[in-house]
């Protein structure tokens, strides 16, 4: 059975779910994958660490952010599963997004992802560094979609 991994990212995920619905084979196993970056909680931990002498580690906002992030990831995957409307597996991982996605696509038959860069014109900047890294290193075929309608080809740079 073919395995289709759908990378769910805040703000751009509906396009990926729609693409999976349209293009994944009927009998494919669909995996909805969300990555929670550690950097946001770390920034909160860091800001608290910078407050010298406050003690009370239980007041560390980073810990609270970690809990909130886990809850929000669950909600997001639930929303994605509802939109997909067919049986699927939900996978939540923590770490550097691009590395975790590559690890999760090992052995997959297709990865669905959205452009995560500048969406006003066609061209290489439409991929931000994490998206670029995944596209360049993916071990499986990719389905790369625009989060909304694609910009038209008049945004193509002039011929040199």
């Amino acid at each position: 059975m073919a395995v289709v991994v759908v990378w769910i990212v805040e703000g751009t995920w509906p396009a990926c779910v729609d693409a999976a619905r349209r293009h994944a084979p009927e009998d494919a196993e669909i995996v909805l994958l969300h990555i929670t970056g550690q950097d946001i909680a770390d920034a909160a931990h860091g800001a608290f660490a910078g407050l010298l002498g406050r003690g009370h580690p239980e007041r560390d906002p980073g810990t609270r952010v970690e809990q909130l992030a886990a809850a929000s990831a669950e909600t997001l995957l639930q929303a994605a599963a509802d939109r997909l409307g067919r049986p699927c597996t939900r996978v939540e991982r923590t770490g550097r997004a691009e590395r975790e996605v590559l690890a999760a696509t090992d052995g997959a038959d297709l990865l669905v992802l959205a452009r995560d860069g500048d969406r006003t014109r066609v061209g290489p900047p439409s991929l931000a560094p994490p998206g670029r890294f995944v596209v360049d290193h993916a071990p499986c075929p990719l389905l790369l979609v625009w989060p909304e309608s694609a910009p038209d080809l008049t945004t193509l740079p002039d011929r040199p």
Partner: protein
Amino acid sequence: MAMLVLVLVCAVVRPFNWPEAVVAVPAAVLVVATGAISPGHALDEAEQLGPVIGFLAAVLVLAQLCDDEGLFQACGAWMARTAAGRPRRLLAQVFLAASAITAVLSLDATVVLLTPVVFATAARLGARPKPHVYACTHLSNTASLLLPVSNLTNLLAFAASGLSFTRFAALMALPWVAAIAVEYVVFRRFFATDLDAGAQAPPTGDAPELPLFALVTVACTLAGFVLTSALGVDPAWAALAGAVVLAVRSLLRRRTTPKALLRSVSVPFLAFVLALGIVVRAVVDNGLDTALGHLLPDGTGLLALLGIAALAAVLANVINNLPAVLVLLPLAATSGPGAVLAVLLGVNIGPNLTYAGSLATLLWRRIVHAHDAEVQLGEFTRLGLYAVPASLCASVLALWASLVVIGA
């Protein structure tokens, strides 16, 4: 000097999870006992720090009680509603909220109480939370320039500068606005991609009730600051009055307990500040003043102010802004209030350059706690490299203009 290093290392590393005061207080006693600082000087320092610490305690309690009253939850709901699913607008709301809360209720309130609310709000809208959470951490430093209560460093400088509350605020208003404006421009550009990603309008649930009583109390406390300083009374009394009003109400409504109130006063922290002040005074008395005195530019011209702010920013990153301000204040105070305020610009904006406000903090935490997940420093530091020099320059220029127009 060794004692200061020991106190700082223990404050950063927190061996056995001890409160920082456990090492700092005996160290302060020791420097007095060994004669490194004369009892007269130590008493002098304690007398100067006493009212500052009282002021700080009142503000910490006030912020915690505002949270108990639901002020921060209401703030989150307001941001979600007015952002209307647009991440750029949400960022603007976060800037407004974080700037106001930091200025009035101190940076602790923004870091501890507002940051989780902002994360939850962004998550609820389906927006990428990174720009908004990073904005909280940056503004807790940058937006803490305005009032003496905004930051412990300000309270210390306020006591040393001899300025009145209103004069302090008047001189710092323009630098505060300038620094926040620069941060906003940097954030809009730096996180352009994240802010482009869409978000959904929030589910229209019941908006939480606006905690009017807490808001009015905070507004009255602010008015009290102006009034007390006009009458020549210590503005700490206004903060105390605000905290007492909210505390009595919360106790009557059983929203808080005397024990929780005492915990929000954070006695070990206050003891730590007092002890750190005495140890630093001992180090300054024993030769650090002459060593650093050569480095600190004289006067309050634009270049001198820039030099002072830059030195303060570097020192805040190498050690931490709290000891940095304690070391620099006695030296800057001789050049007048302008120099003292320039020190504040440096120590308040500077910490945004490194992840935990100081390299020392970060390195020690890394070594001692051996974080199993790698800390991603690259992006945060890159953001700091764009934001800190630009906002520091803009705010120093604004301070210089304020000093020329209003006069120290």
